[in-house]
């Protein structure tokens, strides 16, 4: 608990420093940039004041937190160096094993590249470009306008890239039916896909794992109930469910994510339950019970950490799966907006022009393939590396 507070304090302080500096810059006049927040035009100066104030508060608050933690002795003595050193050595061994397989290394590199790309996409390409010129109704269709991390008019996006699309440029991958540069669209599409994959996979995995762990450990009626409910969800076809949701709640990304989520968590339940069942039989569980450990401790501190590896592997494999399924949904016409940069959507609109402009479907498709393959390789590598029989 104390450690958390200390960490939280440090993070807050860091953010505080950043905000303060940003605010100061804005206050000093900046570049005359204006923001649009909820249809109200705000000048840099006003924004700067806000940032400055927020920054100073965070600074002070963070420092206070660290002091409080120490004063209340919530902070434990420094964790013994030996313990962490041991765990770090263990991790290094895992990484070493990973390094031995060239395919896995390639996959990991590519996967990391794509994740980095998804975080930086906004910096490389102006999201405005997604809005096809001449189609003002698509003005707000790009989801990243709502994203808080690097909003369209964020401080970080200052620079020449913001105002663009003057004059002719090179189109490395061609343009699509709206005249947008395909390469740039693909780059913009990657964060959308990666975000989808992360959200669906992480939520499905977490939820499914917890339920599965409960079912597996408790057994009896609870297990049966959970299994039956999971079976029901297993029976849902993803596409039909997406159709129903789309009809009921409209075609937005969150709706589609929800639909996929509902269909994606059952395999984790089965997986985790199986793992728990086999771990339960192992000697150390009995030894811990003999020692007097309670069920919660055994489940959360021992069994789950030992069973988590197949879940990790499955999750990485599912990354690619979610992207592909999303693309399928887009292809079938579930996209929130036809101009949304999303790999499946791009491929879908490219499908119509497959004979005149095959690049429209080839390149987005290829990108999907590479992403899915990369994560698959990572998952395979993880599975090989984390197999306890091969490890020691």
């Amino acid at each position: 608990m104390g450690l958390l507070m200390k960490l939280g304090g440090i993070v807050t302080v860091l953010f505080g420093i950043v905000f303060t500096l940003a605010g100061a810059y804005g206050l000093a006049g900046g570049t005359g940039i204006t923001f649009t927040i909820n249809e109200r035009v705000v000048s840099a100066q006003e924004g700067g004041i806000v940032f400055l104030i927020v920054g100073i508060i965070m600074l002070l608050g963070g420092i206070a937190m660290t002091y409080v933690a120490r004063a209340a002795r919530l902070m434990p003595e420094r964790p013994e160096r030996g313990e962490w050193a041991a765990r770090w050595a263990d991790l290094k061994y895992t990484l070493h094993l990973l390094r031995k397989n060239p395919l896995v290394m390639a996959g990991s590199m590519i996967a990391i590249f794509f994740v980095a790309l998804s975080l930086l996409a906004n910096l490389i390409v102006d999201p405005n470009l997604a809005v096809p010129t001449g189609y003002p109704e698509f003005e707000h269709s790009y989801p990243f306008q709502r994203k808080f991390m690097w909003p369209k008019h964020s401080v970080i996006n200052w620079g020449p890239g913001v105002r663009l699309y003057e004059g002719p440029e090179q189109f490395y991958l061609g343009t699509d039916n709206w005249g947008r540069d395909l390469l740039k669209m693909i780059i913009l599409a990657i964060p959308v896909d990666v975000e989808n994959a992360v959200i669906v996979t992480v939520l499905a995995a977490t939820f499914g794992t917890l339920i599965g762990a409960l079912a597996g450990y408790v057994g009896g009626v609870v297990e049966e109930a959970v299994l039956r409910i999971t079976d029901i969800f297993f029976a849902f076809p993803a596409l039909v469910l997406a159709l129903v949701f789309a009809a009921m709640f409209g075609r937005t990304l969150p709706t589609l994510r929800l639909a996929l989520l509902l269909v994606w968590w059952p395999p984790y339940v089965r997986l985790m339950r199986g793992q728990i069942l086999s771990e339960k039989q192992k000697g150390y569980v009995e030894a811990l019970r003999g020692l007097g450990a309670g069920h919660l401790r055994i489940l959360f501190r021992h069994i789950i950490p030992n069973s988590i590896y197949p879940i990790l592997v499955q999750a990485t494999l599912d990354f690619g799966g979610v992207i592909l399924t999303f693309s399928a949904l887009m292809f079938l016409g579930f996209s929130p907006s036809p101009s949304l940069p999303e790999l499946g959507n791009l491929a879908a609109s490219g499908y119509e022009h497959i004979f005149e402009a095959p690049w429209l479907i080839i390149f987005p498709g290829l990108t999907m393939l590479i992403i899915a393959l990369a994560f698959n390789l990572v998952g395979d590598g993880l599975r090989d590396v984390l197999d306890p029989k091969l490890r020691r």
Partner: protein
Amino acid sequence: MQMEDLLVVKNLKTWFPIKSGIIQRTVGHVKAVDGISFTVHKGETFGLVGESGSGKTTAARSILRLIEPTEGEIYFDGINVSKAKGNKLRKLRRRMQIIFQDPYASLDPRQTVNSMLIEAMKIHGVTQSRSEAHERALELLNKVGLSEEHLYRFPHEFSGGQRQRIAVARVLAVNPDFLILDEPTSFLDVSVQASVLNLLKDLQKEFNLTYLFISHNLAVVHHMSNRVAVMYLGKFMEVAEKDIIYNSPKHPYTYHLMAAIPVPDPEFQKEEVLLTGDVPSPVDIPSGCRFHPRCPYSTDKCKRKEPSLTEKDGHWIACHHDIDFESGEIRA
């Protein structure tokens, strides 16, 4: 007996139901432990021998309620173990510990030795502060013959013998009074076994521990125990001081068991005393005396009536007849 009785077991039975059919009806029971009664005195080592299917492992776990017994009463230091619940049970668990057979499975592969020992202390609130716990962990490691450098290692970095020592250290961390040792050296090499057995004996003297020692290795049980019980198909056939059991047993099963022990002395003339048939399974227990199908001395009475465990001068035996094994003569 002047020594106090630390553990009293009365008519302990552990039956596992066999379910079959679509609606999972209980069609029968595996009577793993079918009524055993005994006492263990403070400070002694009570040996329990038997072959596979005898129920000794189940009995050990039933005493600690790792497997819930079906019937019977267990008293530890006067406290009723069978009825204890929640916190009371946890307090009892601290005093009654167990070392398992497989050193490769009984340690969580993701925990360091340090973490294991500290966790044990945390569960029972044995120490107050972290530094005190750390001190004690080092002390325990030294007691079992390991050193500080072993504290931050993972189980897979140790050999079988060392892992058993870690298990012993973990168990000692909570200051128990009573230790069940379930085949603690079966998976260990001979030389390692010797050192672990010596360690157990030393610890018993130092901490005044009481042991229940289970093994199928009769020579090891003989080395460690004061009194020995011979178990067959869930019941005791004979219980006595170890020298009587090994040298002048009265039950035919005990006799054959002892005769089957290989002796590390090629010149020792052993008579070929072989028991026919296989070790039976506790699903289908024979009528009358459960040993009668394999017993070369069985009579009609043995088939019909099950003998009860009766005592004579501290020697308990469950047999209808009094047999002289040298001559094969059945007296009484």
